[in-house]
Protein backbone atom coordinates (compact mmCIF):
# COMPACT_ATOMS: atom_id res chain seq x y z
CA UNK A 1 0.00 0.00 0.00
CA UNK A 2 1.56 3.28 -1.02
CA UNK A 3 1.18 6.39 1.01
CA UNK A 4 1.19 9.71 -0.73
CA UNK A 5 4.33 11.78 -0.63
CA UNK A 6 4.25 13.94 2.43
CA UNK A 7 6.81 16.10 4.07
CA UNK A 8 9.27 13.82 5.83
CA UNK A 9 11.23 16.32 7.85
CA UNK A 10 9.32 17.04 11.04
CA UNK A 11 12.47 17.90 12.95
CA UNK A 12 13.30 20.77 10.63
CA UNK A 13 9.90 22.26 11.17
CA UNK A 14 9.36 22.04 7.47
CA UNK A 15 6.33 21.43 5.36
CA UNK A 16 3.23 22.86 6.82
CA UNK A 17 4.38 23.18 10.38
CA UNK A 18 5.94 26.58 10.56
CA UNK A 19 2.71 28.57 10.48
CA UNK A 20 -0.09 29.43 8.10
CA UNK A 21 -1.15 26.07 6.91
CA UNK A 22 0.16 24.83 10.22
CA UNK A 23 -1.50 27.62 12.12
CA UNK A 24 -4.10 25.24 13.46
CA UNK A 25 -2.89 26.42 16.83
CA UNK A 26 -3.99 29.97 15.89
CA UNK A 27 -7.12 29.14 14.01
CA UNK A 28 -8.28 26.74 16.67
CA UNK A 29 -6.97 28.69 19.63
CA UNK A 30 -10.39 29.73 20.86
CA UNK A 31 -11.62 26.16 20.97
CA UNK A 32 -11.76 24.01 24.05
CA UNK A 33 -9.38 21.02 24.06
CA UNK A 34 -12.23 18.57 23.59
CA UNK A 35 -13.10 20.16 20.24
CA UNK A 36 -9.52 20.48 19.13
CA UNK A 37 -9.16 16.79 19.85
CA UNK A 38 -12.11 16.07 17.59
CA UNK A 39 -10.87 18.03 14.61
CA UNK A 40 -7.17 17.27 14.75
CA UNK A 41 -7.30 14.58 12.10
CA UNK A 42 -10.15 15.99 10.07
CA UNK A 43 -8.87 16.99 6.62
CA UNK A 44 -11.48 19.68 6.09
CA UNK A 45 -11.29 21.34 9.48
CA UNK A 46 -7.71 21.19 10.54
CA UNK A 47 -5.39 23.24 8.39
CA UNK A 48 -2.48 20.87 8.58
CA UNK A 49 -4.40 17.60 8.76
CA UNK A 50 -5.56 18.12 5.21
CA UNK A 51 -2.19 17.00 3.89
CA UNK A 52 -2.36 13.75 5.82
CA UNK A 53 -5.91 12.52 6.06
CA UNK A 54 -8.39 11.79 3.34
CA UNK A 55 -12.11 12.34 3.16
CA UNK A 56 -14.81 11.20 0.84
CA UNK A 57 -18.36 12.15 0.06
CA UNK A 58 -21.11 9.93 -1.27
CA UNK A 59 -23.97 11.20 -3.38
CA UNK A 60 -27.02 9.57 -1.79
CA UNK A 61 -29.19 12.66 -1.31
CA UNK A 62 -30.63 13.91 -4.62
CA UNK A 63 -33.72 15.82 -3.46
CA UNK A 64 -33.64 19.42 -2.31
CA UNK A 65 -36.18 21.54 -0.46
CA UNK A 66 -34.99 25.04 -1.32
CA UNK A 67 -33.67 26.90 -4.34
CA UNK A 68 -30.52 28.99 -4.19
CA UNK A 69 -29.83 31.56 -6.86
CA UNK A 70 -26.34 30.14 -7.39
CA UNK A 71 -27.62 26.66 -8.10
CA UNK A 72 -29.20 24.96 -11.08
CA UNK A 73 -30.34 21.43 -10.35
CA UNK A 74 -29.57 20.33 -13.88
CA UNK A 75 -25.84 20.86 -13.60
CA UNK A 76 -23.05 20.32 -11.15
CA UNK A 77 -23.06 23.07 -8.57
CA UNK A 78 -19.87 25.05 -8.51
CA UNK A 79 -20.56 26.69 -5.17
CA UNK A 80 -21.43 23.93 -2.82
CA UNK A 81 -20.39 20.35 -2.61
CA UNK A 82 -22.90 19.23 -5.14
CA UNK A 83 -22.17 17.15 -8.23
CA UNK A 84 -25.51 17.70 -9.94
CA UNK A 85 -28.27 15.17 -10.22
CA UNK A 86 -26.94 13.61 -13.39
CA UNK A 87 -23.74 12.35 -11.75
CA UNK A 88 -23.68 8.84 -10.41
CA UNK A 89 -26.27 8.68 -7.68
CA UNK A 90 -25.93 5.89 -5.12
CA UNK A 91 -28.48 4.00 -3.09
CA UNK A 92 -27.46 3.66 0.56
CA UNK A 93 -26.30 0.05 0.12
CA UNK A 94 -24.13 1.00 -2.84
CA UNK A 95 -22.76 3.98 -0.97
CA UNK A 96 -21.75 1.81 1.97
CA UNK A 97 -20.01 -0.66 -0.35
CA UNK A 98 -18.13 2.21 -1.94
CA UNK A 99 -17.06 3.75 1.35
CA UNK A 100 -15.75 0.44 2.65
CA UNK A 101 -13.82 -0.16 -0.57
CA UNK A 102 -12.27 3.30 -0.52
CA UNK A 103 -11.38 3.01 3.16
CA UNK A 104 -9.65 -0.28 2.41
CA UNK A 105 -7.69 1.23 -0.48
CA UNK A 106 -6.85 4.60 1.06
CA UNK A 107 -6.11 3.87 4.73
CA UNK A 108 -5.72 7.57 5.56
CA UNK A 109 -9.46 7.87 5.10
CA UNK A 110 -10.95 9.32 8.26
CA UNK A 111 -14.08 11.13 7.17
CA UNK A 112 -17.21 10.27 5.25
CA UNK A 113 -19.51 13.12 4.38
CA UNK A 114 -22.91 13.41 2.82
CA UNK A 115 -23.49 16.73 1.16
CA UNK A 116 -25.86 16.16 -1.71
CA UNK A 117 -26.36 16.43 -4.61
CA UNK A 118 -29.49 17.91 -3.01
CA UNK A 119 -29.88 18.49 0.70
CA UNK A 120 -29.06 15.49 2.91
CA UNK A 121 -31.86 16.35 5.33
CA UNK A 122 -34.37 16.59 2.50
CA UNK A 123 -33.50 12.91 2.01
CA UNK A 124 -33.51 11.73 5.62
CA UNK A 125 -34.22 8.06 4.95
CA UNK A 126 -31.37 7.67 2.43
CA UNK A 127 -28.95 9.78 4.45
CA UNK A 128 -29.51 8.15 7.81
CA UNK A 129 -29.62 4.63 6.39
CA UNK A 130 -26.13 5.25 5.02
CA UNK A 131 -24.90 6.60 8.35
CA UNK A 132 -26.53 3.75 10.29
CA UNK A 133 -24.83 1.06 8.23
CA UNK A 134 -21.48 2.80 8.39
CA UNK A 135 -21.53 3.34 12.16
CA UNK A 136 -22.08 -0.38 12.27
CA UNK A 137 -19.51 -1.60 9.76
CA UNK A 138 -16.75 1.00 10.06
CA UNK A 139 -17.10 2.65 13.46
CA UNK A 140 -13.67 4.25 13.12
CA UNK A 141 -14.75 6.52 10.29
CA UNK A 142 -16.05 9.94 11.26
CA UNK A 143 -19.34 10.99 9.76
CA UNK A 144 -20.39 14.44 8.75
CA UNK A 145 -23.09 16.12 6.74
CA UNK A 146 -23.80 19.47 5.13
CA UNK A 147 -27.23 21.01 5.05
CA UNK A 148 -29.09 24.15 4.15
CA UNK A 149 -30.67 23.89 7.59
CA UNK A 150 -34.33 24.06 6.62
CA UNK A 151 -35.29 20.79 8.30
CA UNK A 152 -32.33 20.64 10.66
CA UNK A 153 -34.20 21.12 13.98
CA UNK A 154 -36.43 18.08 13.45
CA UNK A 155 -33.40 15.90 12.67
CA UNK A 156 -31.11 16.89 15.52
CA UNK A 157 -32.14 13.88 17.64
CA UNK A 158 -31.41 11.52 14.80
CA UNK A 159 -28.07 13.21 14.13
CA UNK A 160 -27.10 12.86 17.78
CA UNK A 161 -28.07 9.19 17.68
CA UNK A 162 -25.76 8.40 14.78
CA UNK A 163 -22.93 10.08 16.55
CA UNK A 164 -22.27 12.45 13.69
CA UNK A 165 -20.00 14.96 15.30
CA UNK A 166 -19.55 17.38 12.41
CA UNK A 167 -22.38 19.27 10.71
CA UNK A 168 -21.93 22.03 8.15
CA UNK A 169 -24.75 24.52 7.70
CA UNK A 170 -24.72 26.87 4.74
CA UNK A 171 -25.80 30.22 6.14
CA UNK A 172 -25.67 33.09 3.69
CA UNK A 173 -27.60 35.62 5.75
CA UNK A 174 -29.42 36.33 8.99
CA UNK A 175 -31.60 39.06 7.47
CA UNK A 176 -34.72 37.89 5.55
CA UNK A 177 -34.61 40.89 3.21
CA UNK A 178 -31.17 39.80 2.06
CA UNK A 179 -32.27 36.17 2.07
CA UNK A 180 -35.05 36.98 -0.37
CA UNK A 181 -32.36 37.99 -2.88
CA UNK A 182 -30.59 34.66 -2.47
CA UNK A 183 -33.40 32.13 -2.10
CA UNK A 184 -36.34 32.37 -4.52
CA UNK A 185 -38.35 29.64 -2.78
CA UNK A 186 -38.47 26.97 -0.11
CA UNK A 187 -40.69 23.89 0.25
CA UNK A 188 -42.17 24.17 3.71
CA UNK A 189 -45.08 22.36 5.33
CA UNK A 190 -46.42 21.08 2.02
CA UNK A 191 -46.28 24.42 0.27
CA UNK A 192 -43.87 26.33 -1.93
CA UNK A 193 -43.17 29.60 -0.15
CA UNK A 194 -41.42 32.57 -1.70
CA UNK A 195 -39.80 35.88 -0.94
CA UNK A 196 -39.10 37.37 2.46
CA UNK A 197 -41.44 34.98 4.26
CA UNK A 198 -39.56 31.99 2.87
CA UNK A 199 -36.20 33.49 3.76
CA UNK A 200 -37.40 34.29 7.29
CA UNK A 201 -38.42 30.67 7.89
CA UNK A 202 -35.18 29.31 6.44
CA UNK A 203 -33.10 31.65 8.62
CA UNK A 204 -35.09 30.77 11.75
CA UNK A 205 -34.64 27.08 11.12
CA UNK A 206 -30.92 27.45 10.44
CA UNK A 207 -30.32 29.41 13.62
CA UNK A 208 -32.45 27.09 15.71
CA UNK A 209 -30.65 24.06 14.29
CA UNK A 210 -27.27 25.64 14.97
CA UNK A 211 -28.18 26.28 18.61
CA UNK A 212 -29.61 22.80 19.10
CA UNK A 213 -26.50 21.15 17.69
CA UNK A 214 -23.95 23.17 19.62
CA UNK A 215 -25.90 22.75 22.86
CA UNK A 216 -25.47 19.00 22.40
CA UNK A 217 -21.77 19.30 21.78
CA UNK A 218 -21.99 18.54 18.08
CA UNK A 219 -19.46 20.54 16.08
CA UNK A 220 -20.96 23.01 13.62
CA UNK A 221 -19.12 24.66 10.79
CA UNK A 222 -20.83 27.44 8.88
CA UNK A 223 -20.34 27.88 5.14
CA UNK A 224 -21.22 31.16 3.48
CA UNK A 225 -21.15 32.05 -0.18
CA UNK A 226 -19.88 35.60 -0.69
CA UNK A 227 -22.14 37.35 -3.20
CA UNK A 228 -20.86 40.86 -3.95
CA UNK A 229 -23.52 43.52 -3.56
CA UNK A 230 -25.91 41.07 -1.93
CA UNK A 231 -24.43 39.67 1.27
CA UNK A 232 -20.75 40.64 1.25
CA UNK A 233 -21.00 43.34 3.91
CA UNK A 234 -23.64 41.35 5.76
CA UNK A 235 -21.39 38.30 6.19
CA UNK A 236 -19.44 40.09 8.91
CA UNK A 237 -22.65 40.17 10.92
CA UNK A 238 -23.30 36.51 10.06
CA UNK A 239 -19.83 35.64 11.30
CA UNK A 240 -20.49 37.32 14.67
CA UNK A 241 -23.90 35.73 15.10
CA UNK A 242 -22.84 32.19 14.31
CA UNK A 243 -19.77 32.44 16.47
CA UNK A 244 -21.89 33.63 19.38
CA UNK A 245 -24.07 30.58 18.90
CA UNK A 246 -21.11 28.25 19.08
CA UNK A 247 -20.10 27.50 15.50
CA UNK A 248 -16.42 26.56 15.58
CA UNK A 249 -15.46 27.57 12.06
CA UNK A 250 -16.75 29.99 9.46
CA UNK A 251 -15.89 29.21 5.88
CA UNK A 252 -16.47 32.12 3.48
CA UNK A 253 -16.40 30.88 -0.10
CA UNK A 254 -16.51 32.92 -3.29
CA UNK A 255 -19.64 32.88 -5.43
CA UNK A 256 -18.98 31.03 -8.65
CA UNK A 257 -21.43 32.28 -11.27
CA UNK A 258 -20.99 31.57 -14.96
CA UNK A 259 -23.75 31.87 -17.53
CA UNK A 260 -23.05 28.34 -18.75
CA UNK A 261 -24.02 26.95 -15.33
CA UNK A 262 -27.53 28.18 -16.08
CA UNK A 263 -28.02 29.59 -12.60
CA UNK A 264 -29.98 32.73 -11.80
CA UNK A 265 -26.81 34.56 -10.81
CA UNK A 266 -24.94 33.20 -13.81
CA UNK A 267 -27.59 34.28 -16.31
CA UNK A 268 -28.24 37.61 -14.61
CA UNK A 269 -24.51 38.37 -14.72
CA UNK A 270 -24.07 38.68 -10.98
CA UNK A 271 -20.33 39.33 -10.45
CA UNK A 272 -18.21 36.92 -8.42
CA UNK A 273 -15.77 38.35 -5.89
CA UNK A 274 -12.17 38.90 -6.93
CA UNK A 275 -9.56 36.97 -4.95
CA UNK A 276 -8.63 40.22 -3.20
CA UNK A 277 -12.23 40.95 -2.19
CA UNK A 278 -12.62 37.45 -0.82
CA UNK A 279 -9.41 37.69 1.12
CA UNK A 280 -10.32 41.06 2.57
CA UNK A 281 -13.66 39.74 3.79
CA UNK A 282 -12.07 36.58 5.18
CA UNK A 283 -9.59 38.74 7.04
CA UNK A 284 -12.36 40.86 8.53
CA UNK A 285 -14.45 37.88 9.55
CA UNK A 286 -11.30 36.12 10.72
CA UNK A 287 -10.89 38.66 13.46
CA UNK A 288 -14.02 37.16 14.94
CA UNK A 289 -13.38 33.49 14.53
CA UNK A 290 -11.43 30.76 12.88
CA UNK A 291 -11.63 30.97 9.14
CA UNK A 292 -11.08 28.07 6.85
CA UNK A 293 -8.74 29.15 4.13
CA UNK A 294 -7.85 25.83 2.64
CA UNK A 295 -11.40 24.77 1.71
CA UNK A 296 -11.60 23.55 -1.88
CA UNK A 297 -15.37 23.48 -2.31
CA UNK A 298 -15.01 19.86 -3.23
CA UNK A 299 -17.69 17.90 -4.99
CA UNK A 300 -20.28 15.87 -3.10
CA UNK A 301 -18.78 12.69 -4.50
CA UNK A 302 -15.13 13.63 -4.11
CA UNK A 303 -12.69 10.97 -2.92
CA UNK A 304 -9.21 11.49 -1.54
CA UNK A 305 -6.99 14.10 -0.02
CA UNK A 306 -8.28 17.64 -0.18
CA UNK A 307 -7.75 19.09 -3.64
CA UNK A 308 -7.52 15.71 -5.32
CA UNK A 309 -10.30 13.45 -6.52
CA UNK A 310 -9.79 9.75 -7.00
CA UNK A 311 -13.49 9.10 -7.51
CA UNK A 312 -12.91 7.55 -10.94
CA UNK A 313 -11.16 4.59 -9.29
CA UNK A 314 -14.30 3.67 -7.42
CA UNK A 315 -17.19 3.61 -9.86
CA UNK A 316 -19.90 1.01 -9.31
CA UNK A 317 -18.63 -1.42 -11.94
CA UNK A 318 -15.10 -1.28 -10.54
CA UNK A 319 -16.43 -1.84 -7.02
CA UNK A 320 -18.08 -5.06 -8.14
CA UNK A 321 -14.66 -6.53 -8.95
CA UNK A 322 -12.94 -5.59 -5.71
CA UNK A 323 -12.24 -8.24 -3.15
CA UNK A 324 -11.79 -6.70 0.28
CA UNK A 325 -10.94 -7.96 3.76
CA UNK A 326 -12.81 -5.39 5.86
CA UNK A 327 -11.37 -6.45 9.22
CA UNK A 328 -7.81 -6.21 7.97
CA UNK A 329 -8.58 -2.88 6.34
CA UNK A 330 -9.81 -1.42 9.62
CA UNK A 331 -6.67 -2.68 11.33
CA UNK A 332 -4.48 -1.04 8.68
CA UNK A 333 -6.39 2.23 9.02
CA UNK A 334 -5.81 2.18 12.74
CA UNK A 335 -2.05 1.77 12.29
CA UNK A 336 -1.75 4.33 9.53
CA UNK A 337 -3.77 6.83 11.52
CA UNK A 338 -1.65 6.46 14.65
CA UNK A 339 1.45 6.86 12.59
CA UNK A 340 0.18 10.01 10.87
CA UNK A 341 -1.05 11.50 14.14
CA UNK A 342 2.42 11.00 15.59
CA UNK A 343 3.97 12.79 12.62
CA UNK A 344 1.47 15.61 12.95
CA UNK A 345 2.10 15.92 16.68
CA UNK A 346 5.83 16.02 16.09
CA UNK A 347 5.42 18.77 13.54
CA UNK A 348 3.10 20.76 15.76
CA UNK A 349 5.47 20.45 18.69
CA UNK A 350 8.37 21.59 16.56
CA UNK A 351 6.51 24.49 15.02
CA UNK A 352 7.12 27.47 17.33
CA UNK A 353 10.88 26.99 17.46
CA UNK A 354 11.02 26.59 13.72
CA UNK A 355 9.13 29.81 13.21
CA UNK A 356 11.63 31.86 15.13
CA UNK A 357 14.70 30.45 13.46
CA UNK A 358 13.00 30.39 10.10
CA UNK A 359 13.10 34.12 9.68
CA UNK A 360 16.42 34.91 11.19
CA UNK A 361 18.12 37.33 8.87
CA UNK A 362 14.97 38.91 7.50
CA UNK A 363 14.56 42.45 8.86
CA UNK A 364 11.44 42.79 11.02
CA UNK A 365 10.11 45.69 8.95
CA UNK A 366 10.20 43.78 5.66
CA UNK A 367 6.95 43.98 3.73
CA UNK A 368 4.77 40.87 3.35
CA UNK A 369 4.70 39.09 -0.01
CA UNK A 370 2.01 36.90 -1.57
CA UNK A 371 3.18 33.81 -3.41
CA UNK A 372 1.22 31.26 -5.39
CA UNK A 373 2.25 27.62 -5.22
CA UNK A 374 1.40 24.75 -7.56
CA UNK A 375 1.34 22.20 -4.75
CA UNK A 376 0.86 18.48 -4.68
CA UNK A 377 0.79 16.45 -1.48
CA UNK A 378 2.36 19.23 0.52
CA UNK A 379 5.34 19.84 -1.75
CA UNK A 380 5.99 22.15 -4.71
CA UNK A 381 5.13 19.22 -6.91
CA UNK A 382 2.90 20.36 -9.74
CA UNK A 383 3.84 21.60 -13.18
CA UNK A 384 2.45 25.05 -13.88
CA UNK A 385 0.48 23.78 -16.83
CA UNK A 386 -1.07 20.92 -14.86
CA UNK A 387 -2.23 22.95 -11.88
CA UNK A 388 -5.98 23.25 -11.38
CA UNK A 389 -5.45 25.41 -8.35
CA UNK A 390 -2.74 27.46 -6.74
CA UNK A 391 -2.31 27.83 -3.00
CA UNK A 392 -1.66 31.41 -2.00
CA UNK A 393 0.71 32.04 0.89
CA UNK A 394 1.69 35.22 2.61
CA UNK A 395 5.30 35.38 3.71
CA UNK A 396 6.24 38.05 6.22
CA UNK A 397 8.81 38.47 8.97
CA UNK A 398 6.30 36.70 11.23
CA UNK A 399 6.30 33.56 9.13
CA UNK A 400 4.24 31.93 6.43
CA UNK A 401 0.49 31.61 6.35
CA UNK A 402 -1.95 30.10 3.95
CA UNK A 403 -4.28 32.79 2.64
CA UNK A 404 -6.43 30.70 0.35
CA UNK A 405 -6.43 28.91 -2.92
CA UNK A 406 -7.28 30.05 -6.41
CA UNK A 407 -8.84 27.75 -8.92
CA UNK A 408 -7.83 27.97 -12.57
CA UNK A 409 -8.56 26.21 -15.81
CA UNK A 410 -5.94 23.77 -16.88
CA UNK A 411 -3.38 25.64 -18.96
CA UNK A 412 -1.89 22.57 -20.57
CA UNK A 413 -4.17 20.08 -22.26
CA UNK A 414 -1.54 17.41 -22.48
CA UNK A 415 0.04 18.60 -25.71
CA UNK A 416 3.78 18.38 -25.42
CA UNK A 417 4.50 22.00 -26.15
CA UNK A 418 1.99 23.48 -23.70
CA UNK A 419 1.77 26.33 -26.12
CA UNK A 420 -1.08 26.46 -28.53
CA UNK A 421 -4.40 25.46 -27.17
CA UNK A 422 -5.85 24.83 -23.77
CA UNK A 423 -8.62 22.69 -22.51
CA UNK A 424 -11.85 22.58 -24.44
CA UNK A 425 -10.33 24.18 -27.52
CA UNK A 426 -9.93 27.50 -25.77
CA UNK A 427 -6.71 29.14 -26.90
CA UNK A 428 -4.05 28.74 -24.23
CA UNK A 429 -3.37 32.45 -24.41
CA UNK A 430 -6.74 33.37 -23.02
CA UNK A 431 -6.47 30.69 -20.33
CA UNK A 432 -3.11 32.09 -19.37
CA UNK A 433 -4.70 35.53 -19.12
CA UNK A 434 -7.28 34.09 -16.77
CA UNK A 435 -4.61 32.41 -14.68
CA UNK A 436 -2.63 35.62 -14.48
CA UNK A 437 -5.80 37.37 -13.40
CA UNK A 438 -6.49 34.69 -10.78
CA UNK A 439 -2.98 35.14 -9.40
CA UNK A 440 -3.20 38.91 -9.20
CA UNK A 441 -1.53 40.24 -6.10
CA UNK A 442 1.03 37.42 -6.07
CA UNK A 443 4.65 38.29 -6.80
CA UNK A 444 5.97 34.77 -7.23
CA UNK A 445 4.57 31.55 -8.54
CA UNK A 446 6.32 28.40 -7.33
CA UNK A 447 5.93 25.26 -9.38
CA UNK A 448 7.79 22.08 -10.25
CA UNK A 449 8.26 23.13 -13.85
CA UNK A 450 7.00 25.77 -16.23
CA UNK A 451 7.11 26.21 -19.98
CA UNK A 452 8.89 29.00 -21.79
CA UNK A 453 5.74 30.64 -23.11
CA UNK A 454 3.88 31.13 -19.80
CA UNK A 455 7.15 32.07 -18.10
CA UNK A 456 7.58 35.16 -20.24
CA UNK A 457 4.00 36.30 -19.88
CA UNK A 458 3.91 35.81 -16.13
CA UNK A 459 7.11 37.78 -15.79
CA UNK A 460 5.67 40.53 -17.96
CA UNK A 461 2.65 40.63 -15.66
CA UNK A 462 4.87 41.12 -12.63
CA UNK A 463 4.62 37.57 -11.33
CA UNK A 464 8.00 35.87 -11.08
CA UNK A 465 7.88 32.18 -12.03
CA UNK A 466 10.09 30.05 -9.84
CA UNK A 467 10.93 26.39 -10.48
CA UNK A 468 13.96 26.22 -8.22
CA UNK A 469 12.21 24.71 -5.24
CA UNK A 470 10.61 21.76 -6.98
CA UNK A 471 9.59 18.96 -4.61
CA UNK A 472 10.45 20.94 -1.49
CA UNK A 473 7.85 21.15 1.27
CA UNK A 474 5.60 24.08 0.40
CA UNK A 475 6.24 26.32 3.37
CA UNK A 476 9.98 25.71 3.34
CA UNK A 477 10.02 26.77 -0.29
CA UNK A 478 7.97 29.92 0.35
CA UNK A 479 10.26 30.87 3.20
CA UNK A 480 13.34 30.23 1.10
CA UNK A 481 12.05 32.48 -1.68
CA UNK A 482 11.14 35.14 0.85
CA UNK A 483 14.67 35.00 2.21
CA UNK A 484 16.11 35.24 -1.29
CA UNK A 485 13.95 38.29 -1.94
CA UNK A 486 15.14 39.79 1.31
CA UNK A 487 18.77 39.12 0.48
CA UNK A 488 18.25 40.73 -2.92
CA UNK A 489 16.90 43.84 -1.19
CA UNK A 490 13.41 43.44 -2.64
CA UNK A 491 11.48 43.60 0.62
CA UNK A 492 12.19 47.12 1.76
CA UNK A 493 10.16 49.15 -0.70
CA UNK A 494 6.44 48.72 -1.21
CA UNK A 495 5.73 46.48 -4.19
CA UNK A 496 5.13 48.83 -7.09
CA UNK A 497 3.78 46.22 -9.44
CA UNK A 498 1.50 44.68 -6.90
CA UNK A 499 -1.73 46.37 -7.82
CA UNK A 500 -1.24 46.84 -11.50
CA UNK A 501 -1.85 43.29 -12.52
CA UNK A 502 -5.18 43.05 -14.26
Amino acid at each position, binding site marked *: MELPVISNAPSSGGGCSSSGCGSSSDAMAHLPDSIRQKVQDHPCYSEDAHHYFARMHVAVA*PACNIQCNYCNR*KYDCANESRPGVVSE*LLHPDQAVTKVLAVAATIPQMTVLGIAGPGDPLANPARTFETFRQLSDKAPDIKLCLSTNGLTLPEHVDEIAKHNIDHVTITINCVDPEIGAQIYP*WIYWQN*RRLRGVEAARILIEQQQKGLEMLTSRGILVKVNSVMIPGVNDEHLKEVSKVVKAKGAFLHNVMPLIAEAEHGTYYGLMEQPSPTPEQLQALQDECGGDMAMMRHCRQCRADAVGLLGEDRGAEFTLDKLADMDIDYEAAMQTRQEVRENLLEQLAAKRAGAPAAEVTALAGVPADSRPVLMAVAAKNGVVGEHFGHAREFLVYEASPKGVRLMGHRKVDLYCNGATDCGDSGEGGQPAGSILDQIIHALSGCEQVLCARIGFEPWGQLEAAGIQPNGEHAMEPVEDAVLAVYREMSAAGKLAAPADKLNKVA
Partner: protein
Amino acid sequence: MALQIVDLCVNCWACVDVCPNQAVVEDVPHFLINEQACTECLGDHAEAQCAAICPIEGAIVNELGEPLNPPGSLTGIPLDKLRELGLLDREAA
Protein backbone atom coordinates in the same frame (compact mmCIF):
# COMPACT_ATOMS: atom_id res chain seq x y z
CA MET B 1 -57.21 13.15 -13.46
CA ALA B 2 -53.54 13.10 -13.03
CA LEU B 3 -50.42 15.14 -13.50
CA GLN B 4 -47.62 14.05 -15.78
CA ILE B 5 -43.82 14.25 -15.72
CA VAL B 6 -42.15 15.17 -19.01
CA ASP B 7 -38.59 14.80 -20.23
CA LEU B 8 -37.32 17.99 -18.59
CA CYS B 9 -37.26 16.00 -15.33
CA VAL B 10 -33.80 15.51 -13.83
CA ASN B 11 -34.72 12.50 -11.65
CA CYS B 12 -34.06 14.24 -8.37
CA TRP B 13 -36.43 12.14 -6.26
CA ALA B 14 -37.96 15.17 -4.54
CA CYS B 15 -41.47 14.48 -5.78
CA VAL B 16 -41.22 10.77 -4.96
CA ASP B 17 -40.69 11.55 -1.30
CA VAL B 18 -43.56 14.02 -0.93
CA CYS B 19 -46.34 12.37 -2.95
CA PRO B 20 -49.10 11.28 -0.55
CA ASN B 21 -50.15 8.49 -2.90
CA GLN B 22 -46.77 7.01 -3.87
CA ALA B 23 -47.81 7.84 -7.41
CA VAL B 24 -44.34 8.79 -8.70
CA VAL B 25 -42.30 5.89 -10.00
CA GLU B 26 -38.59 5.74 -10.73
CA ASP B 27 -38.06 5.11 -14.41
CA VAL B 28 -35.62 5.81 -17.23
CA PRO B 29 -34.96 8.13 -18.91
CA HIS B 30 -37.05 10.02 -16.35
CA PHE B 31 -39.49 9.50 -13.51
CA LEU B 32 -43.19 8.99 -14.26
CA ILE B 33 -46.52 9.54 -12.53
CA ASN B 34 -48.81 6.56 -12.30
CA GLU B 35 -52.04 8.10 -13.50
CA GLN B 36 -54.14 5.49 -11.68
CA ALA B 37 -52.64 6.54 -8.36
CA CYS B 38 -52.34 10.31 -8.81
CA THR B 39 -55.21 12.32 -7.31
CA GLU B 40 -53.56 15.70 -8.01
CA CYS B 41 -53.41 15.70 -4.21
CA LEU B 42 -57.08 16.62 -3.87
CA GLY B 43 -58.24 15.99 -0.34
CA ASP B 44 -54.69 15.75 0.95
CA HIS B 45 -53.05 19.08 0.24
CA ALA B 46 -53.89 22.49 -1.12
CA GLU B 47 -51.07 22.24 -3.65
CA ALA B 48 -50.04 19.29 -5.79
CA GLN B 49 -47.02 18.18 -3.78
CA CYS B 50 -44.83 17.08 -6.66
CA ALA B 51 -45.27 20.43 -8.34
CA ALA B 52 -44.74 22.28 -5.05
CA ILE B 53 -41.23 20.87 -4.62
CA CYS B 54 -40.08 20.18 -8.19
CA PRO B 55 -37.08 22.42 -8.96
CA ILE B 56 -37.40 22.25 -12.74
CA GLU B 57 -39.72 24.58 -14.61
CA GLY B 58 -41.93 22.73 -17.03
CA ALA B 59 -41.13 19.21 -15.75
CA ILE B 60 -44.64 18.59 -14.43
CA VAL B 61 -47.70 19.29 -16.57
CA ASN B 62 -51.46 18.91 -16.22
CA GLU B 63 -53.80 16.99 -18.48
CA LEU B 64 -53.79 19.86 -20.96
CA GLY B 65 -50.02 19.73 -21.14
CA GLU B 66 -49.69 23.05 -19.31
CA PRO B 67 -46.71 23.33 -16.97
CA LEU B 68 -47.56 23.79 -13.30
CA ASN B 69 -44.31 25.71 -12.96
CA PRO B 70 -44.05 27.82 -16.12
CA PRO B 71 -40.78 29.41 -17.34
CA GLY B 72 -39.37 31.97 -14.92
CA SER B 73 -41.73 31.00 -12.09
CA LEU B 74 -39.08 29.17 -10.05
CA THR B 75 -35.87 30.93 -10.94
CA GLY B 76 -37.28 34.44 -11.09
CA ILE B 77 -35.40 35.06 -14.33
CA PRO B 78 -37.50 37.56 -16.33
CA LEU B 79 -39.16 36.17 -19.47
CA ASP B 80 -37.44 38.78 -21.61
CA LYS B 81 -34.08 37.58 -20.39
CA LEU B 82 -34.98 33.96 -21.07
CA ARG B 83 -36.12 34.88 -24.56
CA GLU B 84 -32.97 36.87 -25.20
CA LEU B 85 -30.85 33.90 -24.13
CA GLY B 86 -32.85 31.56 -26.32
CA LEU B 87 -33.91 29.52 -23.30
CA LEU B 88 -37.63 30.09 -23.54
CA ASP B 89 -38.49 27.78 -26.42
CA ARG B 90 -36.49 24.93 -25.04
CA GLU B 91 -38.11 25.15 -21.61
CA ALA B 92 -41.59 25.43 -23.03
CA ALA B 93 -41.14 22.72 -25.63
